[in-house]
């Protein structure tokens, strides 16, 4: 099955800019369905970006983040051709991970 994570990382020499789009329902646990029943909370709790063995970006999320979240950030360093590892864990214990080559 295709990864839930789309990522693009571009290095400008000094910094690397990263964009990611993650497919996830991000249900807050406060919304009711058509029958009037609460849709249970189901959201990513932690999202990490790892480069060269270190976390360059960590996001601790709650139900306030919208469905299919988009993230953009930059970090110092990162060379073309090197790998960036992205992983997330949600409140149900599900995970996904992917790696991308820095362009």
């Amino acid at each position, binding site marked *: 099955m295709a990864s839930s994570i*789309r990522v693009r990382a571009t290095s400008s020499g000094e910094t690397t800019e990263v964009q990611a789009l993650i*497919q996830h329902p991000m249900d807050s646990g406060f919304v009711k369905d058509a029958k009037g029943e609460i849709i249970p909370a189901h959201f990513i709790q932690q999202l990490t970006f790892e480069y060269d063995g270190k976390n360059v970006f960590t996001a601790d999320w709650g139900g306030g983040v919208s469905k299919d979240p988009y993230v*953009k950030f930059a970090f110092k360093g990162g060379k073309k051709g090197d790998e960036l590892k992205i992983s997330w864990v949600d409140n149900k214990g599900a995970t996904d991970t992917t790696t991308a080559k820095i362009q």
Partner: protein
Amino acid sequence: MRPRSAIYLASAALALAALTLAGSLPSDAADKIDPVADAKAFRKFFTDKFPKVKLEDFVNGPYSMNEDLYRQWQEKEQFPPYEFSLEMGKEMFSKPFKNGKTYADCFPNGGIGVRQNYPYFDEKEGKVITLELALNRCREANGEAPYSYVRDEMAALTAYMAFTSRGKPMDIKIPNDPRALAAYENGKEYFYTRRGQLNFSCATCHVQSPGERIRAEILAPALGIVNAMPIYRSEWSGMGTTSRRFTTCNSQIRGVPFSPQDDEYRNVEYYLSYVSNGLPISGPGARP
């Protein structure tokens, strides 16, 4: 005075006022339906109002009206929020029905690169056929249950078909048939008619106030407004169809919506698409 009589009196006074005002309007009996002239005037209205906007950029709706929004949108287009729905649409489009046939069997050119020809006027049936309607008819003709016009599946399918037509100019035809002209005119009337307790017409927002704000949103110009459909709206957290937009807009102005694909909706889509002929298909779009 009892309340009911007061209302009658007020209504009568209003009716009288309306009649005396209407009396000074030129007679419409001699007006011919002239879509070519309409489209020309429509385009001129918007290009005059926004001389700095390139003609083809009008299809980007609010982004053509506000630089900051435009910049943010361009950035997000590198990872468009509609990507997942588009993929789903592509998968759905190529998956055969239970009887082995596919959507490609129902459409010219296998359904690829044809979105800009919808809606069209079906002379046999004497009605306007939209893309959404054509898709459901395809399903029913092949023994499948129709999709809801306002949910994800129809949105994904039309998103994919729009994507295959990206960049192609809108190309709506009005045959020389009085029924087609009547449908076009009916769509035009719908567009300008005020409805709902808030007394808005489509034109109130999209002709009188493009580029201005309604609450926190920036209003799109009517020129090219259907070229971006279907749209992934952040407000909806998902892809939504033209039918969804028409019906929810009605309820937002406190008017009871019709059923999706009722004549008025088909006709207003026909009208709006025709007056946007020549502008590129930009769908599926992303909107706030």
